[in-house]
């Protein structure tokens, strides 16, 4: 059977490409780490890849707002045929492909209009702005998945422990209509919660002050997923700050909860191969 293939972008300050590629490999897929300019120059094409990935990092140092400068490239730069990278992604999605953005990747997807894309025209409908704390923070939090999951990444996921590591993760929504669409269509894929799964409304369980306590968005097709927490940073139990006790409780299972998302999407793609 044909392998599931993930394209993982890097360059320009992206810095979580290795752990993201490792996530796909551990989940049984193939992953290629590709410099953004190789994609832009057309030396690497999206065709043939099942999932396009925007990893975490600080593309262009968060200048102009996190993810903005790279999002500008995707809107403004033209490939040899005059198309933009956004056009390429539209084709990839139309052809059944998936797109994942984590942290800075999520910020890029929001600023290119790929998420939530309620209007279907890639206009920016929400933003991710500076946390209420005003600070970059690295802390572990809990997230609860929307059920049923619109994104195959989150199939059967309930409550997850994951680290957040960002300064600009506060989701704000353009207007009431978009807000209503996000709620009604279940696009808020993950919400910050406490350890028991109750939705978090206060810092630090809600680490950034996001509207709807939203930690992740999907588009209406469920093919695009963006999230602030880092599932690729919880591939092994040894990532968790309390790994010593968790390992005992898990009876020696050393897998991290974040790996589940990647196993899910790889299984989904395999099962749905024509």
């Amino acid at each position, binding site marked *: 059977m044909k392998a599931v293939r993930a394209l993982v972008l890097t360059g*320009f300050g992206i810095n979580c490409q290795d752990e993201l590629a490792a996530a796909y490999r551990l989940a049984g897929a193939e992953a290629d780490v590709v410099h953004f300019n190789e994609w832009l120059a057309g030396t690497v094409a999206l065709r043939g890849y099942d999932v396009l990935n925007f990893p975490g990092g600080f593309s262009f*140092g968060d200048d102009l707002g996190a993810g903005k400068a790279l999002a500008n490239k995707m809107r403004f730069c033209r490939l040899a045929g005059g198309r933009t990278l956004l056009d390429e992604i539209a084709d990839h999605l139309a052809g059944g492909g998936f797109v994942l953005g984590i942290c800075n990747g999520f910020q890029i997807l929001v600023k290119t209009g790929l998420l939530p894309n309620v209007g279907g025209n890639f206009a920016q409908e929400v933003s991710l702005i500076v946390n209420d704390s*005003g600070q970059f923070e690295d802390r572990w939090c809990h997230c609860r998945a929307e059920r049923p999951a619109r994104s195959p990444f989150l199939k059967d996921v309930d409550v997850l422990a994951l*680290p957040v590591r960002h300064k600009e993760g506060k989701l704000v929504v353009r207007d009431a209509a978009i807000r209503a669409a996000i709620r009604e269509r279940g696009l808020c894929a993950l919400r910050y919660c406490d350890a028991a799964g109750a939705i978090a409304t206060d810092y630090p369980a809600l680490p950034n002050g996001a509207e709807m306590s939203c930690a992740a968005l999907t588009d209406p097709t469920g093919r695009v997923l963006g999230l602030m927490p880092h599932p690729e940073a919880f591939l092994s139990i040894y990532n968790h700050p309390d790994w010593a006790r968790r390992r005992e409780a898990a009876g020696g299972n050393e897998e991290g909860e974040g790996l589940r998302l990647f196993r899910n999407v790889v299984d989904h793609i395999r099962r749905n191969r024509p």
Partner: protein
Amino acid sequence: MIALHHIACTWNPELPDARCASLRRRAERHLGLRLGGLKHVSVYAVRAALDAAQLERLAREGLSDVVAQRVGIDRLPDGCAGFASFVLVGKLPGTTDDEGLSAQRTLHDLLGVPFAPAPQEVFTSDLWLFADALDAATLRRLAEEELGNPLVNQFAFGPFADFAWPVPEAEPTAAPTVETVSLEIADDALDALSKQRLLSLDRAEMKAVQAHFRDSQIQARRRAAGLPAEPTDAELEIVAQTWSEHCKHKEFNALIHFVDRETGREETIDSLFKTYIRASTEEIGRRLEAAGNNWLVKVFSDNAGVVRVDRDRLFVFKVETHNSPSALDPFGGAITGILGNNRDPLGTGRGGATLLFNTDVLCFGPPDSAVPLLPGQLHPRRVFAGVRQGIEEGGNKSGVPTINGAIAFDPRYAGKPLVYCGTGGILPDNYGGRPAWEKEIAPGDLVVLAGGRTGKDGIHGATFSSLGLDKHSPRSAVQIGSPITQKMLSDFLEVACRRGWVKCATDDGAGGLSSSIGELAPLAGGSEIWLEKVPLKYPGLQPWEIFLSESQERMTLVVTAEAAPALAELAQLYEVEATVIGKFTATGLLEVSHAGRPVAQLDLGFLHDGVPRKHLEAEWTRPVAPESAIPENLDHGDVLKRLLASDNVCSREAVIRQYDHEVKGRTVIKPLMGPAGIAPQDAGVIRLSFDDWRGIAVACGLAPRIGDLDAYASSACAFDEAVRQIVSVGGQLPEPGKLGESTFWCANDNFCVPDSVYDAATNPDGKYKLAQLVRMCRALADLARAYHVPMTSGKDSMKNDFRAAGQKISVPPTVLYSVAAAIPDVRKTVTSEIKEAGDAVYLLGRTYDEPGASEFQRLFGAPGGRAPTVRPEEALPLYYRTMAAHRAGLIRSSHDVSDGGLAVALAEMAFGTGLGLDVDLAPVAESVAGGGIPDAPRRRLAALYSESPSRFIVAVKPENRARFEELLGGGATRIGATTAKPRLRVADAGRRLVDVPVAELERAWRKELLA
């Protein structure tokens, strides 16, 4: 003339603006100023030929956030009316403006043209609007103290009606000239010349330069090359840079006449470096070799030390300091410190190491200091805040996790802070069969300058850091780092090196090209540099400035002519500038020209070996410092809370959270762990790859205040601290007889001392200070030999004094040991926090009555008395037994005992666990030793608060007690157990000393260190 437009963006009024909230907080706390209405506007000044549609698109789509912001083009956005005053903060011409460059990228992407960083077309500034009519003095304080720094920023402020758009200054242009500087002058004029040109050369050194240029052979060769008989400005600068203390370590290599008043002995020490640091490491190297062990690969001779992980991987590790720049501009100093230190592993051997982790150890004045500031001195709070932010941006934006560090406070760091930045990386064993750790250059190879462009920034950094600071310190030495430029450079370098195109890489740091080319040229036998090829940020640099510039984010690469085209193509893909600027030769000369005109021609032998040897005086007398009087009937619960809330013990969480300690997804022991993620840990542990479980533990040891009693003890305690923290997490020291099986250990020593050169007028206690340094080096050698831990790299910083208004603030002599060790299986490491009720709790190691310099003594005034002593003959056997217990998996939690002593360590192990501890210290108190037989109350205080080194507290599952006790022998003293009840109870023979809820202790400990 190209039109200038201004695009202004501000957050929608209904959204919170965190920057405004922060300014409001700081203005109230620091200036006692309650601000009314406040608004922040980002201003982009764009000097480019744009039509109206392009300008509109740049503003709305490119620079502003359409959902969250309002934008104005050549006007302020809506909602900016009704303000009374303003402050506009821009960058001084030539200062790094990363955001401007990113905006320029967006502009070029929009226009569909390839990105060009120069000339600068977009300039950013921050506009702050205040509803209150603030007077000019208040606005100036806000501008200069809270919103910017006059060394890097320019300001405009006043009534809002006077606001005008910023107009970027055109860079001055100047025709390149090469000046001749006459050295045929009187001796005191030579001194004046050295001072005036910031050469930092003393008279003997100036005379040596003078003599060299008088040599008839040199003169003949210079005539032939078209150079004047006397040195050019560039030549003098090159010699000064190469001979600077920063680059040549003249004091560590000096002949020292050492008088020990305690023993009456006198001796001559022929170089501290050779006698103590190199000799001990070489001896350890011989022991390892004799045991058939080959992990010590490269020491002292490259940008970072190299040890072997396994057949395919090498570990490179370097720690540097960036003290002087951090004193002037804390943010810029720290960010360039961390980025500069990152370039050392990147520039080791052939280059291209993958960075693995950072460590940061910071020493500041007290953040709440009320001591009036001297002219040019920044408040310790500002230094702390700026340095913290610099490390955050430098580390986080480079994608390198900060996994270990420390912060120490002492009023003597209020003049010059110490900013230690460490970086570990992994280098492949070889590139296409060629050893990756070796630098290889042949005549004919090309010199490639890669990365950022060259400007006037940082000129004289190397010579300036070799001086004390005063209010005339050069502002050109201050610069702001660009993490994105460096990240793009390191991404490119990694690929280029793995493809085998790079023969050698090195950092352009202090001294710039002069230093990097100067160090590489001898490997080939000479070098020729064509300065007109160097890409500049702006025109107008003189040739000597181009050669000496310390512009950041640049590296010098050596490539063959055959590989150069492929390298250039890769650089273009990665959008990194990589320019051929010269070649290597076999002439024995460093030859520099600008557009065909000779600029410098220096004999490499003279340049590297011509510096006269220094002769220094050291004299040791043991200081007398009495102990504090300790009140009777102390409430130990209260004392413990005060200890936990002291600056040197309290939680570092607020700082740690703002550093990414887990990017790369492989950090196993982070600075804070446990169920609540707040329990402080000993060593950091990181896994090397996702394919196996090998890892590295890293820890830092620092004990400057013990040095007030005995510099030897200070250095020994610091060394022991770093080693025991790694033993605490499960690290395995090399054992005699088992050396062949052992895995690597390596240390970096970083000495930061005050001016230790005796001068009757300006430095009357210089001999004592130098004696302290001698004793610190002796401890290094003794402990390294005892523990079999070699130094693989290090650095010294010798002039950590701040002088102003006739006063001097000198740092206490401080040595940091940063130690890294291989961990064969990270899954077997142990964290500090307790895990479950019912575990047996033990103290490992012996407690002594040696209260000197302890945090406990400090609560009661002068922290004198006997200094804590490392006793390797006791410590090492204990470490070996502890290591065996770790190997057997018997230790469930382990925390080393350090600042604050046992009571503090017990409390820290409970934080965030929901559990408690119940211990009785009687068996510890009974066995307290040292200085005669202390009485019972003294023994109790020692048990609770002594900072005797080489001790751990461990928790052991009940079923493992027997095996554990058998392995530890007499080294373990059982003191109690963990409890389900979250209280800390400490008794002495049944008498309750402490009985406090852990939550209460935690509250005291988690105080806000930095407002």
